[in-house]
């Protein structure tokens, strides 16, 4: 079986700070494999049995190769970087279309297509759904556990207020929201082994995509303007020693 994992490289949001205009200060902040992408890779690797392979794919600039290297370190077997100047500025639609072209052309027999539930930078959470729609496959989101079960998969989904367990057919798109509590580390041997694995680069023509279906030109979203929103607390406090007074205070505020 082949498991495709679509991953994204993001700035390490734990380290990132925001300037007074609300813009991200990216200087000196390392780029990492998106944490949810990492969970998806972990889940795919855990599903692997003898003869199976995990194929990581990412659309991004050259430096996104380091996120794919991380996928290899934690257990992926192959890695593809979809990189082309024409891909720059892609929104959800253009990104999904590019990923769709990759899946159809290179791994149309994928047993599962896994994604993170959303990326830590853009936070749209739309790519898995759009990709599933374009590929005409079933989609399962919020996966916290995936098991193999005779040609299909049992997926546990955490909706916050309920846990659903579903049977997903082969070929489904699954977005993952939970992995190991502790980020995995490769062994030295694994690092040596994957150091010689080639990260294959594919451009627009390799995927057979026209200029108007990718990148900024293929995007349907236009950012008109953005602004930082700050909320400030009013600072009104009740000490609660007299519950009756506290209750009427709260009522007054509401």
């Amino acid at each position, binding site marked *: 079986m082949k498991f495709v994992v679509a991953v994204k490289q993001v700035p*390490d949001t*734990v*380290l990132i700070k925001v300037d007074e205009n609300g813009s991200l*200060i990216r*200087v*000196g*902040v*390392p780029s*990492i494999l998106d944490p949810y992408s990492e969970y998806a890779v972990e889940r795919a690797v855990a599903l692997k049995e003898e003869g199976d392979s995990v194929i990581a794919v990412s659309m991004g600039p050259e430096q996104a190769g380091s996120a794919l290297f*991380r996928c290899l370190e934690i257990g992926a077997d192959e890695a593809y970087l979809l990189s082309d100047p024409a891909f720059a500025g892609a929104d959800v639609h253009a990104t999904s279309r590019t990923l769709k072209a990759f899946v159809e052309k290179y791994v149309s027999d994928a047993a599962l297509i896994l994604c993170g539930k959303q990326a830590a930078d853009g936070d749209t959470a739309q790519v898995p759904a759009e990709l599933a729609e374009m590929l005409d496959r079933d989609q399962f989101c919020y996966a916290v556990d995936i098991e193999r079960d005779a040609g299909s998969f049992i997926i546990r989904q955490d909706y916050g207020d309920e846990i659903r367990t579903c049977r997903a057919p082969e070929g489904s798109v699954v977005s993952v929201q939970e992995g*190991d*509590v*502790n*980020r*995995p*580390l*490769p*062994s*030295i*041997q*694994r*690092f*040596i082994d994957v*150091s010689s694995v080639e990260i294959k680069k594919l451009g627009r023509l390799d995927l057979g995509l026209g200029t108007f279906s990718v990148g900024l030109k293929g995007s349907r979203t236009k950012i008109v303007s953005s602004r930082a929103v700050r909320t400030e607390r009013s600072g009104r406090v009740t000490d609660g020693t007299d519950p009756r007074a506290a209750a009427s205070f709260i009522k007054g505020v509401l």
Partner: protein
Amino acid sequence: MDESKTAGEADGLLVPEEEADVAEAVRTAVSEGTCLTVSGMRTGMCAGAVPHGGYVLSMEKMDRIIGVGRDGRGYFVRVQPCVTVRQLNDFMRRRGFVSAVSVTEGAAEQLAAEGREFFYPVDPTELDGSVGGNIATNASGPRTFKYGPTRDWVRRVRAVLSDGSVLDVKRGDIRAVGRRIPIPFSEGVREIDLPSYEYNRAVKNTAGMLSEDGMDAVDLFVGSEGIFGVITEADLYLAESHPLMSNIVFLPRNGDAYALSRDLPGSGVVPEFLEFFDSGSLDLIRASRAEDPRFTDMPDIPDYAGSALFFDLPMDGSITDKYRMLEPVLEAHGGSLSRSWCGHELKDRERFFAFRHSVPQTIFEYVARLKGSSAPGINKMGTDMSVPLAHLDEMMSAYDEVITRHGLEYVMFGHIGNGHPHAEIILKDMDDFEEAKKAYAELARKAVALGGSPSAEHGIGKMKTEYVRMMYGDRGVEEIRAVKEKMDPGWVLNPGDMVVR
């Protein structure tokens, strides 16, 4: 209170915002006939910042990075004393120097335009300690293995002396002639006679003040625990940084990691440092993880691991060759390249250090609980002794023999590559504590007899003044006291630290 968890009491708190306030505080203390205890981030482990009367002089508001400069040796950062090591690291990592002030012409612009990256290479385990405290204690860390202690990176200090005057001195400005060094005070130069002992630089050592023929005046303030002046500003050199790979290799039996640490240098691979964990310290982490699986934020320690060795290697094109060189040595001690963790991303490398820090941290918390409940007088008993590598085998046997003879359990971890592992004695009650003190003193004497130091990195403070005597004898202590008398006749600055009046 500091990390030693000993409590003190003071008559008042002074929080200077600038150097003039520090000078004012010193003059006030002198005129009132009282004293000052300088306090930074209170991360010290020997009660150096714990006052016994007088004022506490908290440097907390002097926490600014002033700018960057450059001289013949290279780039340096100018800092106020309460900048933390973490703050300094962040400043470099986030390229704060791009918008920083140049203290020598064009330095900030030059540094910003560099293709190379730089960092401050002293890496005390406690990153939240102040650089003023780091200088005053000549702090070190794992990377001291390669880069030396804080002393090697101090370019210049500004210090308020006991008469309220300010001494601004950089390396090369004032040097001793033989063991006599002239220090300018407001009413004139005082000739200071440095102690006659041979200061042990061959091992990591923070016992007593440095004393050498031709010593630089900067070194009078580095490692002297603030008893000669209050540091108000310093220049710290930067080193060029290279990408690194952190590694932990797991070995099957308790003694294997130590044995490997002895053989590893023979493989031809030069690590940035060598830190080890014995089976007890791995079990300590395992126990904490059983309660909280997120503890240390690392994968589970493999069941087969009886000890482990932690080291960094330069992450360059030759790293796989280096691993191949290591492989036979590793296998000779029951390990393999598969039984290991490695990580090169910044967040992973930070996790390796957190993992290392979790051992003393766990013991700290355990002892703090005892202190808060059944044994208020108890303190953590972790050894801080270094010996030359040639005598490390003998010292390791001594740790086992002496601590066991006193009926105590211990775990060992730490800077094995510097001949400076920490033996943490596990205490259950005050009886254990009393026994541990005896064992500790015996081990300290052993370390000194083997040409080592009884206080390699934690300093002396108020808790280990006896080790200065152990190291340099009555005469050495008298000589340090004589320097103190000359520099600070009223014993106004940090009285009780390093030497007792």
